[in-house]
């Protein structure tokens, strides 16, 4: 019993920074409708800034002042991000802001590396709170007790701010209906900035507060992201009490998980989230997202057409170039083009889901990495011939996608996106923590292709044929009756259902098909590298694909492939620089602001403007 209570107290103390970060994210989402992926980065800056300030400011007063100042500094960083990056893209197409915030993540990662260096920083202990107190005989760190007291105070302060002040009323009103608030004469731009500053400050505060427990390192931005999303989704987007309750549930559960089920702590969190969403689809305190709230912004998508003869010509020339590459190019260029082709297929499969299906999946890496792992596991454990493992991998990935899609498609909009992310993280944590089977962090190695495919040139042709065939098939399906039905379900769910189309069935099949293609890319990947590690399943891998699709252009057929080719080429160029993430991040932000229709969309617009291409339907 004593142990039990001690466990709960530890869990409650751990909930503190999770709650602060989550309610910041929730506030920002509620008002601006932006899912701020850079929120983890703000948390990280809070920790680093707090650390530096604690070195300078002496004693207990200095310690607590440093925490508060860290919050303020991050608040200012938030204002800068909002004004410089987000303001120009509020009018951009749906979810485009995500890519911008991802650019911010990259920039902050490299800036933190520049300023604070690569080594992990051990957080200073809080002056006067170094030891433990015994509660019912169990030792509890004094700092935990302090957190237990501080968190409810901050929660109460937030509650007061939200319910009793003018700013709070405006924020709540804007969460309900921001157009109306704008119509009533409230300056929306500054309201958004204010909320973003507040949300950022809370993240910074959370980062600084956890210093004595966790310190600061360069991975903490991504590490906090998954639990924070889980908390916000369980609690309900935009709900502060929800965030508080969910942070406690997750933290307490985590503490018990570490004690009783140490192999499954990560999995547990996602299982809870999935269960909650199955019962309450919009979280514990969330309200239903009104359809169309995340509706398409900007220009409606144009009707699709078969490629023009010029485009076909360009593609043929490019393909001929690839076919003759082994004659002229170095073996390095073969490996590079192989990687690029695989990535293009992966991106095209996500683009199919995202563009044609309108289904924003944040967890597409699950099928890519899933396909790779299925092949690798078959080879490692059952000595399956490579050819059979290669064929089974996409089917396995497709089945996984069907199962995940079956659950996720109950929801729409941002909840759908979050749930797909959670499932992908579930797959990742299964692989990561189930080390005895999957090799955990060490991955699976020695996964080579069959003898006849071993030579680099042969494998290059193998990948070339399969990737191009896969991409062409994806493209063709978009022109087929099925592709049209999928677009119909996206354009007008109501009309589609009213004319006999089972939209959920169509979307589920599309989800499975995209998973299959992602799995095919994954299978080609694992045999080209000879090994697979859990990072192929990571959030970052899913985001790579998302960015590529957005950069290429969601509303164009070629967007995925063009974006992938561009991204790989860019990565190749930038990797030579020490701070390539910074350059990449800035470039992403630049593209988002300057070319919100993506590369293909902007090229098309440009061609129309200078008269190379006929303007349609005017």
């Amino acid at each position, binding site marked *: 019993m004593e142990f039990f209570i001690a466990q709960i107290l530890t869990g409650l103390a751990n909930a503190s920074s999770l709650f602060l970060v989550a309610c910041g994210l929730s506030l920002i989402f509620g008002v601006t409708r932006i899912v701020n992926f850079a929120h983890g980065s703000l948390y990280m800056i809070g920790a680093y800034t707090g650390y530096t300030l604690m070195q300078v400011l002496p004693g207990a007063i200095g310690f607590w002042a440093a925490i508060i100042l860290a919050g303020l500094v991050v608040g200012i960083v938030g204002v800068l991000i909002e004004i410089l990056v987000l303001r120009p893209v509020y009018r951009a197409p749906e979810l485009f802001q995500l890519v911008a915030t991802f650019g911010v993540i990259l920039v902050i990662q490299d800036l933190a590396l520049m300023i604070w260096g690569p080594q992990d920083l051990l957080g200073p202990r809080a002056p006067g709170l170094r030891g433990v107190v015994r509660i019912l005989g169990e030792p509890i760190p004094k700092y935990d007790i302090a957190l237990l007291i501080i968190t409810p105070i901050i929660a109460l302060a937030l509650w007061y701010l939200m319910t009793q002040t003018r700013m709070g009323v405006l924020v709540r009103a804007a969460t309900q209906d921001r157009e109306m608030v704008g119509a009533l004469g409230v300056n929306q731009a500054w309201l958004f900035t204010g909320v973003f500053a507040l949300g950022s400050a809370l993240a910074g505060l959370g980062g600084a507060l956890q210093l004595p427990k966790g310190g600061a390192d360069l991975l903490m931005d991504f590490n906090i992201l998954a639990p924070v999303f889980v908390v916000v989704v369980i609690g309900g987007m935009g709900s502060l009490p929800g965030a508080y309750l969910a942070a406690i549930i997750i933290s307490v559960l985590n503490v018990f998980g570490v004690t009783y089920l140490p192999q499954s702590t990560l999995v547990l969190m996602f299982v809870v989230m999935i269960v909650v969403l199955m019962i309450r689809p919009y979280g514990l305190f969330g309200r239903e997202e009104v359809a169309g709230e995340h509706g398409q912004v900007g*220009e*409606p*998508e*144009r*009707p*699709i057409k078969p490629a023009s003869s010029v485009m076909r010509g360009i593609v043929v020339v490019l393909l001929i170039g690839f076919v003759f590459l082994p004659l002229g190019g170095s073996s390095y260029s073969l490996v590079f083009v192989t990687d690029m082709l695989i990535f293009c297929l992966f991106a095209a499969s996500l683009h199919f889901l995202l563009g044609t299906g309108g289904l924003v999946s944040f967890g597409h890496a699950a099928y890519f990495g899933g396909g790779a792992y299925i092949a690798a596991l078959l080879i490692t454990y059952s000595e399956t011939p490579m050819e059979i493992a290669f064929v089974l991998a996409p089917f396995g990935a497709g089945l996984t996608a069907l199962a995940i899609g079956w659950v996720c498609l109950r929801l729409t909009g941002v909840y759908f996106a979050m749930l797909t992310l959670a499932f992908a993280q579930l797959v990742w944590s299964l692989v990561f923590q189930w080390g005895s089977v999957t090799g955990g962090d060490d991955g699976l190695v020695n996964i080579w292709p069959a003898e006849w495919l071993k030579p680099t040139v042969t494998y290059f042709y193998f990948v070339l044929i399969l990737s191009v065939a896969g991409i062409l098939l994806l493209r*063709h*399906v978009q*022109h*087929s*009756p*099925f*592709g*049209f*039905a999928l*677009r*119909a379900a*996206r*354009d*007008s769910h*109501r*009309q*589609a*259902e*009213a*004319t*006999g*189309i*089972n939209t959920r069935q*169509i979307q589920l*099949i599309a989800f499975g098909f995209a998973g299959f293609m992602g799995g095919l890319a994954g299978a080609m990947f694992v045999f080209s590298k000879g090994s697979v590690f859990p990072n192929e399943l990571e959030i970052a891998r899913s985001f790579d694909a998302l960015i590529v699709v957005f950069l290429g252009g969601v509303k164009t057929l070629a967007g995925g492939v063009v974006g992938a080719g561009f991204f790989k080429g860019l990565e190749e160029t930038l990797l030579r620089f020490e701070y390539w993430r910074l350059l990449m991040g800035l470039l992403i932000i630049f593209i988002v602001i300057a070319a919100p229709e993506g590369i293909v969309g902007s090229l098309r617009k440009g061609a129309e403007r200078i008269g190379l291409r006929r303007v*349609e*339907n*005017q």
Partner: protein
Amino acid sequence: MTSVLETKHLTKSFGAIMAVDDVSFGLKKGELLALIGPNGAGKSTCFNMLMGQITETSGEVFLEGQKINGLLPRQIWRKGVGRTFQITSTYSSMTVIENVQMALLSHHNEILRIFSYATLKYREEAMALLEMVNMADQADRHCAVLAYGDLKRIELAIALAHDPSVLLMDEPTAGMAPKERVELMQLTAKIVEDRDVSVLFTEHDMDVVFANAHRIMVLNRGRLIAEGNSEDIRNNSLVQDVYLGGGSVFANEPSAKHA
């Protein structure tokens, strides 16, 4: 003469509010039947129940003698009921003709095919439907750039794609210019004649209703209060009260509440 579509004691309550209260009527074959009533009378609720969009509290709906309530909208559509929406719903990323082809593909159960080209399918049939609603000359235009009245006509073509026996039109002329309204209703009347389809529609514009409907039903506060031809409805004192604000409809209610 038997009814193609029939409701029996159809009722829907939202909490204490009876949105539709014991409504029974029949739509006869080849009829153009109007359902009118002031704002909040329960017209749209009634419609949504007929199309399976919402579930009734009690009562039944029959299509050619077969019970259809409890079915999903897409199942009701497959039984031969077409509908148009009060606020148009078209596929904005497609061309005009592709919108109609989509409905034809669905009707012929071909939406799961992946090896053919959708735009090559049922083009002639789609064109014929577009000709009927006078949209053939705009067949290859992008839906998103069209005028509202044109979208309404495309919706009509979509609704007729599976050759329905019953067509439900929820405020077909809402948001249209007066001239367009007359044209659309004349078109509808012509379709009723040519295609052997029975139409039930709701409408705000009384001129449209009186000029075209074969029969009119008046709904107020969820109840049917009158039924008959234009002449009957025009002269019905109860209807005049409802529309002209002459007083309370139900004796036990203060008239002031009904503005």
